[in-house]
């Protein structure tokens, strides 16, 4: 699975790494039980500091998407392991709020936003070419 980092972007690099790994899992390009490369190796391949990758892995762990085990590395959790908790749902809602609010202010209707959500969902379910 390929990820693509843009160092000149306003989005911090660790955030880009986190988002793209999550997207890859959503697409099914990485399956539960798959191992992510070691922090050291991924940092070398990206040409960034180890702390950047470490931060991203810890964020993924805090979200319950991966499990970091000493020696064997970062492993993607299975669906049972990452069963959706009310806490996680609340967090997603919180993250969505500013985006929906922006749409409202600009005049998007409920139908339009609903349609958008369905489209994003469908897009992620179709295995994409490359990234």
């Amino acid at each position, binding site marked *: *699975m*390929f*990820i*693509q*980092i*843009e*160092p*000149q972007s306003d989005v911090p690099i660790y955030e880009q790494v986190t988002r793209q*790994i999550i997207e*890859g899992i959503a697409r099914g390009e*990485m399956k539960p039980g798959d*191992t*992510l*490369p*070691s922090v*050291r*190796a*991924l*940092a*070398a*391949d*990206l*040409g*960034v*500091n*180890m702390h950047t990758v470490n931060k991203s892995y810890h964020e993924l762990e805090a979200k319950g998407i991966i499990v970091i085990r000493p020696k064997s590395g970062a492993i993607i959790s299975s669906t049972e392991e990452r069963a959706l908790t009310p806490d996680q749902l609340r967090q997603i809602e919180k993250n969505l709020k500013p985006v929906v609010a922006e749409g409202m202010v600009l005049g998007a209707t409920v139908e339009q936003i609903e349609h958008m959500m369905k489209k994003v969902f469908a897009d992620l379910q179709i295995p994409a070419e*490359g*990234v």
Partner: protein
Amino acid sequence: MLLGVFTTIYIMTLAMQIVVPYIVRETIAFGVTVPDQNIKHPVLAKMKKQYVQLVGGSGIVFLIIMIISYNMLAPSESLQSMVLMGCLFSMLTVSMILYWVNHQKVSMLKKQEQWCVNIKQVRAVDLTARSRDEMLPWSFFAVPLGISVFLMIYTMLHYDQMPNDIAVHWGPSGEADAWRNKTYFTAVSLPLVMLMVQCMMWGITDSIKRSAIKIAVNRKDESLEDQLKTRKYMSWKILLVSYALTILLTVLQLSNIYPSMTVGYKLLPVFIFFLVVLIGSLFIYVLKKRKHRVRYVANIDSQVMDIDEDRYWKGGLIYMNRQDPSVFVEKRFGVGWTMNLANPRGYIVIGLPFLVLLLISIFSL
């Protein structure tokens, strides 16, 4: 004999200089990053062709001068060797100057035509690449270390039967031509040199393993394949050289303990074997490198390109990037790898064994 060996080395070096523009990545022309969108610029192809013609032409001229003046200066050996070295370095200087001129020209062209402007620069990484890395494990590089240690112990056990003069230098025909008085230190200096070189080879391979697997964003699958093969063959090449050197130095050390081994030209085949492995492994590496090189048939129409790292490459040759955790990166003009001079780890891997080697040669050779 000397002329023969030297002519071979000269021709090999010349051949390397000539093929360089055609084995390095096409996205790098004379040490300057060329975006995929401009890769088939007509000026670049012309420059490469001209470079090969000029380096090849002057190389042949120097070779003729070398052979003729070598025979004319026949009685004086020091003059002869000066001519040999002089011609080799003149050839290398010509190719360096031509490289430099072309490097400047491509840089100018890039600036004038505004390549890389308005193209998004990204870095692509394959998360599964590491699990497909086929570099040899460290245990392969640890084996010869054991041989060196064993040889040191063996030398100590047979110290009394060694002759009073220890050979420390050998001529091209495999005969010793310099000796030192026997002490415990000079007796084991050869296996000690061996140990240091083996450590260096191990360190280099290990550092390459920890260095980046770089992928071209517009040609992901092919460039990944190229990277994995490059790393694999590089580790094989280093291992071969390490083993060949171990065999050569072991034989030389045994010939110090059992002087009857040196009678006649008995050692010559070992020297030839070592040279063949050294040159042969480089040759195979270059062939493999060329086979897996990512080829472009036309300019690529894409919104993204790989990150332009020109500012970290001084003159397109010396790499200094503080942010990059990689210790070794592939050369941008030439065969092989070069060190990231801004990474202190590299100084330990290369510098420490080198320092010990220097100390050994000062005190024992």
